[in-house]
């Protein structure tokens, strides 16, 4: 599954960069995408459902990020806080990357560290003093 998604991502980048839908370019793109080496640590065991959820969260994060940005601008967020967020079970490196991306993309939260023992360290800015 990860192999297929990886190939789709590479082909997307290729077609966006070349902007040429001719059959020759499609052929060159597929060959180039297959020839570029893949990460040796990449895991292929992630399920389609996990990937679907993670990609959906990335899409939802876009409007959420703009809402949070306006909130920060309109109401001052004076307080800072550090929390832990549990990593869901059976997370592959690709899904961990997407998790970190989604958390850090929204302006109120930034991942400061990923602990392999099972949690993300998340830095928050808040309106009210944390309990």
């Amino acid at each position, binding site marked *: 599954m990860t192999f297929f998604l990886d190939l789709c991502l590479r082909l997307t980048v290729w077609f966006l*960069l070349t902007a040429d839908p001719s059959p020759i370019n499609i052929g060159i793109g597929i060959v180039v995408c297959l020839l570029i080496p893949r990460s040796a640590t990449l895991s292929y065991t992630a399920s389609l459902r996990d990937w679907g959820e993670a990609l959906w969260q990335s899409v939802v994060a876009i409007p959420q990020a703009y809402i949070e940005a306006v909130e920060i601008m309109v109401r001052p967020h004076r307080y800072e806080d550090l929390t832990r967020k549990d990593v869901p079970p059976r997370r592959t490196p690709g899904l961990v990357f997407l998790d970190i991306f989604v958390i*850090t993309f929204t302006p109120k939260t*930034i991942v400061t560290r990923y602990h392999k023992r099972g949690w993300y360290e998340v830095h928050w800015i808040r309106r009210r003093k944390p309990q």
Partner: protein
Amino acid sequence: MIDQLINIVSYGCIVVGLVFWLWGTWPLVGPRSVLYKLHTLSVADTLGSVAIVVGLLLKIPSEWPLLIMALIALAIWNTILGYVLAYCSTEEPND
């Protein structure tokens, strides 16, 4: 009529992006922590720039492949660079 509407939305996106840029860059000279500045920078660099590129996308739709590429690159690079800077600015806990 539709052209006018697209123009308004396009300039609106660009203006919103510029406001985000200015608002997010200003705290850099303030006394807050590095991590707080990274939060405001994600408003400026990522969301501001994305709004500007969306505005450009509406103005020059013929260049959509490069502009979509720019959107993806902006979102991924700025966000992950924010994570890297946050990682570098905090110490490894002892536990």
